[in-house]
């Protein structure tokens, strides 16, 4: 960053953006949230089966189905040509995280559906169990591919954060699924733990992201709407985690359940805000020619003068 200060005379074309702002509307950050919530819930469902918690198992399965169903609608709704949504599966293209994600969803969605329907109707238990474990096996990929997707763009606030982005989305998935499960089944300790653990990881990664980025790129997260959303996300998540952990030893009480439910809802809202903050930061970063030109110029000047860090 010593090199940066030598170049505050950054030159632009009438301060106009170099990049195009992502065209994605509110559907996409919404999908990032519900996709993560579904993935986390699928893992919770498998875990609930493993310890024999039927209430958590059902809640998690239904949550996963509702989330991924809604998420699929959101993804189609955001397309410029929604009637051509199936073109996503026209090819297999490993260089496109969106294509890889579409194939993942094509396998994951039906598994989630079978798992939930089998659980609700009590029919085809073997198939249901198979579907539950298949969904859980795909869940880590569903929770993290969206982080790869945003990082695989020219948007500096996303691309430069590529080492952290998948982890941030995984943490958000844990917080979202844990928060929903805690709100629905407040007596489940694993749900509360996942929610609180997710919040802890999300908070740590969000501040790691800020430290990782050079000032001109990081500004997208620390200024404007993205900053306000991140502050809201932080407050809601931490307050929610406090509500979920508070009052240890007074288990089983009505007040305690109510607090946990409230905490779960706050954590979920925090996770939503965090997803919107990341997308908003990307937009701001694409609009800002400094975020595009600054790091590239430092790279060139560094390699010429030999000042570049290895």
């Amino acid at each position, binding site marked *: 960053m010593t090199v940066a200060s030598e170049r505050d005379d*950054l*030159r*632009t*074309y009438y301060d106009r*953006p*170099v*990049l*195009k702002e*992502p*065209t994605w509307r509110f559907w996409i950050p919404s999908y990032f949230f519900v996709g993560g919530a579904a993935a*986390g819930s699928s*893992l919770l469902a498998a*875990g609930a089966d493993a*310890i024999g*918690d039927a209430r958590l198992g059902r809640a998690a399965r239904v949550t996963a189905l509702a989330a991924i169903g809604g998420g699929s609608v959101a993804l189609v709704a*955001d*397309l*410029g*040509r929604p009637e*051509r*949504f199936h*073109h*996503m599966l026209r*090819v297999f*293209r490993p*260089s*496109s*995280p*969106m*294509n890889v994600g579409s194939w993942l969803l094509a396998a994951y969605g039906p598994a989630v559906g079978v798992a939930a329907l089998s659980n609700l109707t009590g029919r085809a238990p073997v198939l249901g169990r198979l579907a539950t474990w298949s969904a859980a096996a795909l869940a*880590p*990929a569903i*929770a*993290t*591919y969206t*982080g*790869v997707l945003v*990082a*695989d*763009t*020219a948007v500096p606030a996303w*691309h430069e954060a*590529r*080492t952290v*982005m*998948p*982890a941030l989305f*995984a943490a958000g998935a*844990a917080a979202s699924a844990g928060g929903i499960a805690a709100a629905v089944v407040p007596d489940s*300790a*694993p*749900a509360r*733990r996942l929610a609180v653990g997710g919040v802890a990881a999300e908070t740590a990664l969000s501040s790691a992201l800020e430290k990782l980025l050079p000032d001109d790129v990081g500004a997208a997260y620390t200024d404007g709407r993205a900053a306000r959303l991140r502050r809201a996300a932080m407050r809601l998540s931490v307050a929610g985690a406090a509500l979920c952990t508070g009052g240890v030893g007074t288990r089983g009480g009505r007040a305690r359940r109510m607090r946990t439910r409230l905490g779960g809802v706050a954590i979920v809202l925090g996770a939503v805000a965090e997803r919107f903050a990341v997308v908003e930061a*990307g937009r701001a970063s*694409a609009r800002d*020619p400094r975020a595009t030109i600054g790091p*590239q*110029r430092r*790279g*060139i000047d560094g390699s010429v003068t030999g000042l570049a860090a290895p």
Partner: protein
Amino acid sequence: MVDAAPARVGFFTDTTLCIGCKACEVACKEWNDVPADGFDFLGLSYDNTGELSADTWRHVAFVEQVVPEASASEPGLRWLMSSDVCKHCTHAACLDVCPTGAIFRTEFDTVVVQADVCNGCGYCVAACPFGVIGQRKHDGRAWKCTMCYDRLHGGLEPACAKACPTASIQFGPLDELRLRARERVGELHERGVSSARLYLDNDDDGVGGAGAFFLLLDEPEVYGLPPDPVVTTRDLASTWRAAAASGAALLAGVALAFMRGRR
């Protein structure tokens, strides 16, 4: 039809020859039937086009500069004009990230969007390091320069190059254009124009060289071009590795949450 694959073709835009007439913008619009993009007065010198987009496939930039006395043979005001276009990158991010296969590489080594396949997901828009491709409103699909794919099939040069009255836009086999461009830079340097440099002519750059490259008189960012663009998919493998580690951590976290008991 041709027997062998044709040689890679491209644009060499020599901005020292550009007079800012915008014939390229008009010819492109006419030939490709590109819709209007608004009658905006931007107040940026003579540039009222602003940027490349779904509805603008050639954009002439106008840069007004005061030349420092020490560095110029002719001190005073200098006007840089440059006709920008899709770069038809060797490693094209838009093509790499396109989930439908709508964006493909042609037999001329150009990069073209198939309008009948594109479903308007917008991924290419966020991936292009030059901000070239855009989503067309009320249409929903992504559009950009095709290097006049239809004209190339007919053995014609693209409409912009055809219309350019000063040969600022030169079309031809990329190898030939690169040779010609290097000669031209040498000639300009000899004449004392030391700021002349080529942009995107090198196969070793972040996009593997481009099908459309430029002779500039100042740093690329002055013209609104990224100084060191990189195809985002260069870092895709390492990003997937980060995702794999994160996914494993998520699994471990869930396992931990269950291992400590249900209450």
